[in-house]
C-alpha cells in the first residue's frame, strides 16, 4: 500500500518471540512521509511489541526493517551498527511512550528535557537550545513561564505534551506513538490529538500510532492495520476498515464501539 513514492519505513516479515510465546509474527507493512498509520488491537495483540521493534528497543527475532534515513541512506535497522541505530533514535525517529515518565527525565526541567534533544545532536549554544525548547513547548501549547519547572509539577496530560515536544525538537521523519492518550481525560485527549494532528500535517511526518481506541484511530489516521494474537488480520484505509470490516475480529472490534 504505497502512495507512489519510496516508503520511509517498511518491515518484511518482522517477528519477535518471548521465548516460546509470540510477541508479533511476520509483520509486513510500509509507511511513507505524510502518512498516518494506526495499529489497533486489544491488549496482548502485539501492537506494543511491534512498536518497540520499530523503535529499536528490542531486536527482532527475524525479518527486516528498512528505513530511508537522511544521514545513512536506505538502511536495514536490524543490521545497522549500534552507534548508528542510537543516532537515528535521537534524531530521525521519535518514540513517544505511553507513560511520560518513561520518556522524560523527571529530575530535569521541562525545558531541559526538550533542549536535550538538540544538545545530543551537536548544538553547543545555550541560547539556541533554549530557543528551540521554547518554540516546541509553545507549539504544544505549554506555558513558557513554567519551562524551568520539573515535569512532576505538571499533570500527566501536560507531561505527555512535553514528551511530544521533546521528540519533535530534533525534526524527526518518523513519529512512533504508543497509546499516547490512554489514561487522559477525554477532553484532554481530544485537545492533545488536535494539536498533534496540526503539527503532523505541517511537518509532513510519518506517524505510526498504536492504540486500542478505534475512535482515536478514526480521527487521526489515514490507514490502519488490525492486530490479533501477534498477527495482522486486516489492513487498509482507515475509513474502509472501520466502515466495512472484512475479518471477523475487526467486525467484533467495530461493533463494540459505542455509537457517538
Amino acid at each position, binding site marked *: 500500500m504505497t502512495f507512489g513514492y519510496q516508503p520511509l519505513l517498511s518491515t518484511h516479515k518482522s517477528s519477535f518471540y518471548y521465548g516460546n510465546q509470540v510477541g508479533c509474527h511476520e509483520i509486513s507493512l510500509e509507511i511513507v512521509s505524510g502518512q498516518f498509520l494506526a495499529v489497533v488491537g486489544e491488549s496482548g495483540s502485539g501492537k506494543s511489541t511491534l512498536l518497540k521493534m520499530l523503535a529499536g528497543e528490542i531486536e527482532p527475532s527475524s525479518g527486516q526493517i528498512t528505513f530511508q534515513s537522511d544521514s545513512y541512506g536506505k538502511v536495514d535497522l536490524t543490521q545497522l551498527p549500534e552507534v548508528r541505530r542510537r543516532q537515528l533514535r535521537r534524531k530521525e525517529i521519535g518514540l513517544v511512550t505511553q507513560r511520560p515518565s518513561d520518556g522524560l527525565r523527571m529530575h530535569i526541567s521541562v525545558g531541559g528535557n526538550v533542549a*536535550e534533544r538538540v544538545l545530543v545532536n551537536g548544538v553547543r549554544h545555550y541560547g*539556541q537550545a*533554549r530557543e528551540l525548547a521554547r518554540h516546541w513547548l509553545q507549539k504544544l501549547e505549554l506555558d513558557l513561564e513554567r519551562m524551568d519547572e520539573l515535569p512532576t509539577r505538571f499533570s500527566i496530560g501536560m507531561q505527555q505534551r512535553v514528551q511530544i515536544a521533546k521528540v519533535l525538537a530534533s525534526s524527526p521523519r518518523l513519529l512512533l506513538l504508543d497509546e499516547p492518550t490512554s489514561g487522559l481525560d477525554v477532553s484532554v485527549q481530544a485537545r492533545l490529538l488536535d494539536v498533534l494532528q496540526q503539527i503532523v500535517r505541517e511537518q509532513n511526518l510519518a506517524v505510526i500510532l498504536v492504540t486500542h481506541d478505534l475512535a482515536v484511530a478514526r480521527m487521526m489516521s489515514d490507514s490502519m492495520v488490525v492486530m490479533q494474537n501477534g498477527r495482522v488480520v486486516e489492513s487498509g484505509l482507515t475509513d474502509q476498515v472501520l466502515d466495512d470490516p472484512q475479518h471477523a475480529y475487526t467486525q467484533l472490534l467495530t461493533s463494540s464501539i459505542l455509537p457517538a
Partner: protein
Amino acid sequence: MRERSYNFGYLDEATKRSLRRAILKSVAIPGHQIPFGSREMPIAFGWGTGALQINCALLGPTDTLKVIDQGADDTVNAISLKKFLHRMTGVRLTEQTSQASVIQTRHRIPETPLRAGQIMVYQVPIPEPLRFLEPREIETRKLHAYGEYGAMYLKLYEDLAHHGESKSSYDHPVTVNGYRLSAPSPIPKFDNPKLHHSPALQLFGAGREQRCYAIPPYTNVESLSFQDHPFRVQSWEQSCEQCGSNNSFLDELIVDDSGKRRFVCSDTDYCHQQLSKLL
C-alpha cells in the same frame, strides 16, 4: 608493639607491575578511564586509596613526596596518608610544592606552577562525569565509546536555566585532548585552567571505583561550556589576610560566635612562600 615489615610500597611486585601497566595505558589514551584491579589498602575506600595505590606503584627511593588535602599539608587526612606512604617507602617528605617530585592531592591544585618531571596524583571519588545522569556503568561505557556527550551539556543547561551560571563550582567536567570527557576530581572551577598544558604528568586514581586515568604533560584540557556562555572562574573581593595574595583560592574561616569571617589562602605552602617574600 611489634612492627611488621612490608614490601616496599606495601603492595607486592606483581601488583605494582599490573598497576603500572594500567597507568601506562591511561597515559596512552588521555582522559579515558582504565579499569584496574584495585586492592584493599589499610586506608578506607573513599579516603584516597586509588591515588595511594598509584603512589605505591610509582614511588622510588629517590622521590620526594608532598601530600595535601583541601590545599593544606597539615590536615589530618593528608598527614595520615603521608605517614602511611613514608612508612612503606621511606621517601623524603616535603611541604614545598617546588621540592616535590610527586604530589598527592585531594580537591585542589597548588598555586605554585608545576614543572616538567613532577607528577600530580589526584584522589577521585567518582571518576565518571556522566554518573549523575546515568547510574549504570553499561550505559556510560557506551556513551564514551560513541562520543555521545550531549547529555553532559544538559547539566550546564539546567544550571544556567536555574542559577544563571554553572552550579558545578567544583568537579566541572573537561574535554581532554579534544574529545574525551573527563571528571577532573572535585577541584574547584578555579583550578580547572591549571590542568591545561601543564608541564607535569597528571594521574587520577579512584580505588573504590577501580579506575585510573591520566592527562599527559602539555595536553589540551578544556572546561565544558556553551559557545555563548564561556567558562568563568571564581573570584573574591577579599585578599588573603596572611600574605595579601589576590590571585589564590581563599578559604573562608568563621572566627567567632558572631559569624565574623577571615579569608586565608587554601594552599598553605603558597601562603608561606608569599609571606616569606614580604618579610
